[in-house]
């Protein structure tokens, strides 16, 4: 195994286990050896975070493990960001997400943000207690591939319908895929309110988002999404 292969394997393992210092050191070493920043990102870091997501979906990984893996990856992103930005690469897709009006639960939504950014999406996080008009404005402004609504309470879930109606009224319904999720939400309920898809957890939400935007070439992924990822992951971790 060449040193470059060892570095890729090491980055994968250390990200998976949330070892931030090791991930940072290996990223620096890889760059010194002349490895391509995109190679480090797409052949080691992103696959690792995807593995984190798979394990979380299966119940083998728990919330804190997902958070420290994201934190470890963030350490590498800080270094890679300016290098990838120079190449002018584009994100995988755009995603507007927020917790609905009247609801201030954000753990699940924040996990989605981490996973989506880890997968190369440019994510616009509208935070909690988001009124329908704010979703509409964000869809208008950012023209995302997907808009995701999160609700943790049976009493706030009806906001899905209100949001969808607002988006329809603004003439944007055909322009954006609408995904919903949150503890009490079911596939049946998602259909009932007229959403396009339902995801039971953050990892699934990310996989579905990737399917929605379709597979794109590695070359088109990156820069802006990563720039956002660095800030957003950091912010998310600070907020908890």
């Amino acid at each position: 195994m060449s040193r470059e292969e060892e570095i890729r394997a090491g980055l994968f393992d250390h990200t998976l286990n949330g070892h931030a210092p090791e991930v940072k050191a290996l990223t620096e070493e890889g760059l010194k050896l002349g490895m391509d920043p995109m190679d480090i990102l797409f052949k080691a870091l992103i696959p690792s975070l995807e593995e984190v997501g798979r394990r979380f979906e299966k119940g083998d990984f728990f919330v804190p493990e997902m958070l420290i893996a994201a934190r470890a990856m963030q350490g590498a992103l800080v270094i890679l960001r300016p290098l990838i930005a120079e190449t002018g690469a584009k994100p995988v897709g755009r995603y507007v997400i927020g917790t609905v009006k009247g609801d201030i639960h954000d753990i699940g939504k924040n996990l989605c943000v981490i996973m989506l950014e880890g997968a190369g999406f440019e994510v616009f996080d509208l935070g909690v207690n988001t009124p329908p008009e704010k979703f509409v404005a964000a869809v208008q402004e950012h023209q995302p591939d997907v808009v995701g609504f999160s609700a943790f309470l049976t009493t706030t879930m009806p906001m899905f319908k209100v949001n969808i109606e607002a988006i329809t009224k603004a003439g944007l319904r055909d322009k954006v895929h609408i995904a919903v999720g949150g503890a009490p939400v079911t596939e049946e309920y998602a259909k009932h309110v007229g959403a396009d898809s339902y995801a039971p957890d953050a990892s699934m939400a990310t996989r579905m988002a990737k399917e929605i935007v379709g597979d794109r070439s590695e070359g088109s992924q990156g820069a802006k999404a990563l720039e956002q990822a660095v800030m957003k992951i950091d912010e998310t971790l600070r907020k908890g």
Partner: protein
Amino acid sequence: METVLRSRTREVVISIDRPFVIIGERINPTGRKVLAAEMKAGRMDRVKADAIAQGAAGAHMLDVNAGIPAIDEPALLVATIKAVSDVSDLPICIDSSVMEALEAALAVYEGKALVNSVTAEDERMDRILPLVKKHGAAVIGMANDETGISMVPEERLAIARRIVDRAADYGIPREDVIIDPIAMTVAADPTCGLITLETMRLIRNELGNNMTCGASNVSFGLPDRATVNAAFLPLAMHAGLTCAITNPLVPEVRRAVLAGDLLLGHDEYAMRWIASYRAEQAAAATK
């Protein structure tokens, strides 16, 4: 400060000077698919069985929630409360954020109920508190407002104080406001546990109100939640928590509360602790 809740025939007193009060959390269709399906179909067998089982496991009150998406919640909440009252004489904690459901439930409830819950949002306070007053009920006040949940204990105290003050404006006595200092999972932020405990200490010292919380929240996203929940309860009891919405059917939780009472001097000569031990021994012997 004593908060008194009543069913038609039974009275429960919540106070820092008395044993901890367990409010059984099980009668809640959120995240319980089978229960939700049965309740939706108007079948109350499981609701009744849950009421009986929680009472037998040491619950002093029962939380009743009928929040199922796209359903007539007022009617379902009333039916669920009636079903629970058929088989249990424990006072009820009426759990809904739908005004009409709270109103309907309070109208049929015989006794003094606990309303779960109001936040410090003006709109919520001004709708729910008059209703609480009208029915002579008690209410849980969540220490958050429209800006969300503060991570600063002093701010949560200030928010709690706002609810107590507003309740007083509506003529609700101080003892009938139970504050929820808000427990959040330590899985997302390791400081969450300490922030909640510190908030409890402040509220106990500054306001003196009884306190409750969704104690099972602390372990969300973690494995072996029972052990974490069980460790949290006695810490919280010492910080001023006087009741909790939790699951008495989890042996670790039930035992942690009993042990906490014992260690805090609320179980004279360890009679309840010993009785619980004997009951468990006897149950094991008959298996």
